Structure formats: C-alpha cells, structure tokens
C-alpha cells in the first residue's frame, strides 16, 4: 500500500518559515514559553514569601523558651514545611521558570521544545504546590495529625517531582537540540549551561525522591504509619548535603552571566566557568546518600569536602573577572556577588556537616547550611536574575534603589539567619527544631539574631515580590532598551520583551560564546567597550 508523503515544510527545504502573527493565548491556555516562564517566576516568588514567613515564625518561637504563637504540632509541621517550600516550591521552580523563559532566547531558538509539556509542568507545579500547603494546613505532614492530609501531602510531593521532571525534559531538549547554528555546546551561555548540567543532574535525582515517596505513600495509605522518625531523612536528603548545592547551580549560572557583563569584562576562559558549574552539579548528585548509614562513608565525607572547591573556584573566576573590569554598583551585580558569597558559606557549612566526628547532624547547623544555600544563594541568585533580565522579561527595568534594598535585606538577613544557626549548632548543639534551651548563655542571643535575619529575609521576599508585581502590572519604571547592559549573548539580540517568535530577523552564525560581539567584529574593528555594546546593535 502506498503512502502519501507529507508536504515538506518550508524550513526543512531551506526556505523561510512564514512569520504569522500568533494570537495571544490567555494565561490559562498559553503554551508560549515566555508566558509560562513569567507565571513560574511570580508563583515561585509567592512561595518564597510563604517559606520565609514560615522561617520567621520559627525564629519568633525560638526567642524565648516554650511556644508562644504556635502549638507543638503546628511548630513541628512548620519546621518541615519551610525547607520543603524553600527547595521544592521556590528554588527549583524559580530557576525552571527562568530557564523556560530565557534558555530558548539564549540559544537562539524560536520556541521551547515541547511547549505544551512545559505549560503542563507549570500547572502541575502550581497544583502540587497549592496542595502541599493545603495538606499542611489540614494537619498533614510527616508528623501530621490527619491521615487523609498526610496522604495528600505525600501525593503533592510526588506531583511536584513529576512537574520538575516534565519541565526539565523541555528545557534540556531545547539546550541540546535547538541551539542556533554555530553554537556548539562549548559556546553555550553560562546560564543555559548551568541549567543543562544542574537540571540534568536534577532530572536524575528527582525520580529517586519520587520512588521513595511512592513507597512511603503506599505504606502510609494502607497502614496509617510512616515508619520511625528517621523516615523523614528519606525525603529531606533532597535539600541536605550534597543535593542542596545542586539545587542552586542555576543561581551560580546567573552570577556567571551577570558579573562579566556588569563589570564590562569577560571570563578569562569561558570553559573554566563551564567546568566549575559542571563540577558543582556533579558533586551535588546526592541520591546515593539518602540512607543514614551512607553518611558515615568516606565517599560521603570526601564529596562533602570537595563541594567547597567549585564554590571557591567560582568565587575566584568571577573575582578575577570583576578585577579586570570596571566595578559599578548596580543592583544585579551586588545580588549576584552576594549569591556567590553565600554559596561559599553554604559549601563550607556542608563540608563540616559531612564530618561525622563533629556531630553536627540534627543540630541547628543543618538548618544554617540550608538557609545559606536556599535563602542566601537561591534567593539572591533569583533576585539577580530578576533585576538583570527584567528588561527582557517585562520590558521595564526594576528600580536600582529597591534592588539595593533587596540586596541589603536578602544578603545580610540570610547571613544573620544562617551564621546564627551555624553557631548555635556548633557551640550549643541546639537541636534543629528545638524551642527550649538549657545551660547555654549564647543561645538566646543567637536565636534573636536568627529571628532578626529571618525577618529581613521575609521582608526582602515581600519587597521583591511586590516590586515585580507592581512594576509588571503598571509597567512603571524606566522603559528598557533591547540591550541595556551591553550583554553579548543572543537574548539581547531581540526586542524587550521579545516578539512571539522570539527573533524578528535572522540570527548571526555563532562563532564564540559572545555572538553579538562577533557580529560587531564583522562590522569592523571595534574597541573593548564597543565590542559588547556596538556588537549588540549589529547582532540585531
């Protein structure tokens, strides 16, 4: 039986795809990666507020012995909700959203791969996140009082891991298969690269968490038990050592994009940045270390200690880049450098946490490690991404003053919170979720500092969320140029915000990690500064 060949598309036959004017879909039905990315970002910020306010409540309860605001059950549930919301509802989805929006633009693709899958992932995440919070409110959680709500809690975590994997399949396929002509893997922009390596390892890690959750769900649903109290370790490894480092690899990628551009400099070696980000991701693979017994292994100790090296290397690479350029006090630069400083702090905390002889596991030190990475690196990296790419995201620039304030609150708040908890764990062996303390004079002071830090983090999160929502709703603030910072990656070669098909004209053939500067080089010899700014014009 013969078959009729499908008519070859113009693009496949070397022609030009007709540039129709797609009808803008509503928020509920859109599969435009830019709309989906924006939805992700705003939703993740709202969940950051939830997590930060939860951390503040926990901090208030530790100010004085005993419980004042919450009852014992609510306090225990909140102490597990805060890290879950911080990791699964804020950090991972925020950078998934940033990647959903930016990766197709950075690699020069007209759309994201599997656009409907990407939209499905967002709605799955939203439903999973809302269900998780609702399940906690209804008495669910690892030490919850309601069986139904606890079932719902476990199901919502499974749904969130499915959403994460679905979104990552779209993003990874875009980076691997939809790069612009000439953009080899080694010429991929560092943010896209960080998403590729970090997201690739998360793609291999999240299903292992899902496997544990499925087993726990079956056990709890049919027997009403979740096992011994140690069972929570089967879930919490996902934001412990070393996996927490993996979750913030895209934040490191943001810093690696922002610092060279805002210091009008270049990484001495683009590949060095790629190696550092890849090392962060690979050392963050922690699915093998989820059972308590593996945490005394030499391998676990070695991996925990080794995690410091790429963090320090990133600080060194970016410091060298900034030293060779012009440091200007712009909000995205402050935020990006702050994220890297917290990455080093978190990595050091993780290294010491991995040494069994120090007996820091189960103490407030563990909380400090999480706070440095999630509220420090994760939140500051997210703010840096918002301030840096806001022109591309919404066509407006976010305020410099509010950006500096966000840096002050986010950096110093997370530092105060994390360092106070680290000191509490080290000096007074304070258990992670304790409310009463004995015999340690320093503990009340440190708990007060931690509460103040949590308040600053929460205030910063509210400020950033409000700033973003107000600016994008009223379109207030300075209208942004297409390339306000003089960036040389492809997202700056299109309008702010981009058209439905991302790029209106043909893109230059990529010949280096800085394609817009290459286009400028074609136009004739240009100076260092003009290479980035003038090159951007030529690229368009």
């Amino acid at each position, binding site marked *: *039986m*013969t*078959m*009729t*060949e*499908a008519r070859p598309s113009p*693009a*496949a036959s*070397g022609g030009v795809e007709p540039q129709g004017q797609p009808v803008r879909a509503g928020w509920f039905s859109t599969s435009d990666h830019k709309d989906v990315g924006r939805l992700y970002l705003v939703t993740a910020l709202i969940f950051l507020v939830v997590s930060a306010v939860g951390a503040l409540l926990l901090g208030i309860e530790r100010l004085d012995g005993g419980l004042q605001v919450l009852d014992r059950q609510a306090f225990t549930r909140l102490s597990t909700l805060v890290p879950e919301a911080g990791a699964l509802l804020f950090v991972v989805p925020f950078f998934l959203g940033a990647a959903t929006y930016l990766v197709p633009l950075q690699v020069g693709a007209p759309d994201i*791969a*599997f656009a409907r*899958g990407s939209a499905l992932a967002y709605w799955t995440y939203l439903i999973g996140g809302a269900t998780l919070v609702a399940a906690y409110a209804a008495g669910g959680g690892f030490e919850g009082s309601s069986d139904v709500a606890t079932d719902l809690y476990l199901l919502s975590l499974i749904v969130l891991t499915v959403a994460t*994997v679905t979104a*990552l*399949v*779209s993003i*990874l*396929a*875009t980076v*691997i*298969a*939809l*790069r*612009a*002509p*000439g953009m080899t893997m080694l010429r991929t922009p560092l943010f896209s690269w960080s998403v590729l390596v970090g997201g690739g390892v998360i*793609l*291999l*890690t*999240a*299903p*292992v*968490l*899902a*496997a*544990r959750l*499925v*087993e726990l769900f*079956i*056990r709890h*649903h*049919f*027997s*009403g038990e979740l096992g011994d109290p140690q069972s929570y370790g089967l879930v919490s490894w996902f934001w412990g050592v070393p996996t927490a480092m993996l979750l913030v690899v895209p934040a490191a990628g943001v810093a690696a994009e922002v610092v060279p551009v805002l210091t009008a400099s270049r990484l001495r070696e683009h590949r060095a940045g790629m190696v550092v980000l890849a090392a962060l991701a690979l050392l963050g693979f922690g*699915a093998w270390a989820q*059972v308590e017994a593996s945490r005394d292994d030499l391998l676990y100790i070695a991996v925990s200690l080794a995690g410091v090296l790429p963090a320090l290397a990133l600080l060194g690479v970016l410091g060298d880049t900034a030293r060779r350029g012009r440091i200007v006090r712009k909000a995205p630069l402050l935020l990006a450098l702050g994220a890297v400083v917290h990455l080093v702090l978190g990595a050091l905390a993780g290294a010491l946490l991995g040494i069994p002889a120090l007996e820091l596991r189960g103490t407030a030190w563990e909380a400090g490690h999480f706070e440095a990475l999630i509220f420090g690196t994760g939140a500051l990296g997210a703010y840096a991404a918002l301030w840096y790419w806001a022109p591309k995201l919404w066509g407006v620039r976010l305020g410099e003053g509010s950006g500096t304030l966000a840096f002050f609150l986010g950096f110093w708040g997370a530092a105060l919170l994390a360092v106070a908890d680290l000191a509490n764990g080290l000096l007074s062996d304070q258990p992670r979720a304790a409310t009463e303390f004995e015999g340690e004079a320093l503990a009340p002071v440190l708990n007060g500092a931690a509460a103040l830090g949590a308040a600053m983090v929460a205030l910063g999160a509210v400020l950033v969320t409000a700033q973003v929502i107000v600016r994008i709703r009223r379109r207030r603030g300075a209208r942004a140029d297409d390339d306000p910072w003089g960036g040389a990656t492809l997202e700056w070669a299109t309008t702010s915000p981009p058209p439905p098909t991302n790029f209106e004209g*043909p*893109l*230059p*053939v990529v010949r280096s990690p800085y394609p817009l500067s290459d*286009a400028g080089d*074609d*136009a*004739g010899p240009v100076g260092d500064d003009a290479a980035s700014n003038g090159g951007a014009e*030529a690229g368009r």
Partner: protein
Amino acid sequence: MTATSSAATVEPGVIPALPPAPEPPRRGRVVLVGTVAAIAAGVMLFGGLLAAYFSARDLAEAAGEAWRPQDVVLPNVPLFMAYLTLLMSSVTAQWSVSALAARDRRTMYVAIGLTLVLGLAFVNALSFSWSQLGLAAGTSSYADTVYAVTVSHLLVVIAAHVAVLVMGFRALGGQFSPRKRELVAAAVGFWHFSSLIGVVIWYCLWFLEGGP
C-alpha cells in the same frame, strides 16, 4: 574570505549582511532528546524503587526476620506469562515502525493494534497475579516495596499505552510518513523502555525470590 571581501564593498556605516544560517535542526532530534531524557528519568525512578526494595530486604534479613511472609506463594506462571506478553508487545511495537518505514500503512495499523492488545493483556495478567498473590499492602515492608515497584511500572505501561494510542490515531489521520516518523519512533522507544523495565522487575522481584 567572501564575507571579508563583501564587507569591503559596502558603504561606510552600513553593517554588512551576515552569512546565511545553516538549516535549523530538525524536530526529530528534539523528540529523540526528549525521549532519552524521559527514559533516563524513568531508569532512575525504577533504580530508586528497586534500591528501596533491596535495602528493605537487607534490613529484614539483618534483623533475622522473614523477608517474604510465609503464607505468600508467588504465582510464578501468571507472572511469567504477564512479563513475557509485555516483552512480545515490544516486538509488535517495533514492527509498526518498520512497517511505516516500508510505507506499509495497513501493517502498521495491525502492529499498533496488536501492541495495544498485548499491553492490555499484560495489565490483565498482572492484576490476576496480584489477586493470586494475596498480599495486603501496608502489612509488611515486602508488600509495600513490591506494590511500589509494580504499581509504578503499571503506571508507566499505561503512559506508554496512551502514547502509542495517540500515535495510532495520528497515523489514522495520515500524519506520518517514512521520512516523518520521529513521534512514532519516540512512542515505541518509550514502549520498549516499559518492556525492558518489566523484564528487570520480573528478574529482581519474582525470579530472585524463588521463581521458576
């Protein structure tokens, strides 16, 4: 170089035209990468499930407890037939791709239909095996881990059914051709994955537990 010489002829201040971009990557590569990524995630899911199973078994044996409850007898024949059926469905699934490549549309419909029927036969045989097993979930670590693995696998098989069914309907609509068969190949690739995982599960859960 051509680009340089043409740049030399343009007027001052005019940016020269860039060389034409090569042909954009085909959708086939995107589908292939997406399928490989989804399968990699699936491999890690079942790796995690089977690791949990063996870890629980080691703990039970270290504590001197019986891993499998004494009264549970494995229904070896239905289990073997269930997984053999699933493996056979992989052959018919691949047959559909070969038929499409050979422009034999009728054979492709038959192969897709047979694949779905064999897949449903697996679901039926697995359900029957569960009923024969008489193992209540929530009563032991053995029961919890066995159901975690097999229920997850069943969900993957159902997802593969949906993918192949959608491809079947699209094929009926005349959407595919020998040169444009990436989506069919991707759906069939996912089906192969579900079959191969089935073989691994049969070996780990049933054969190593004292099967035939």
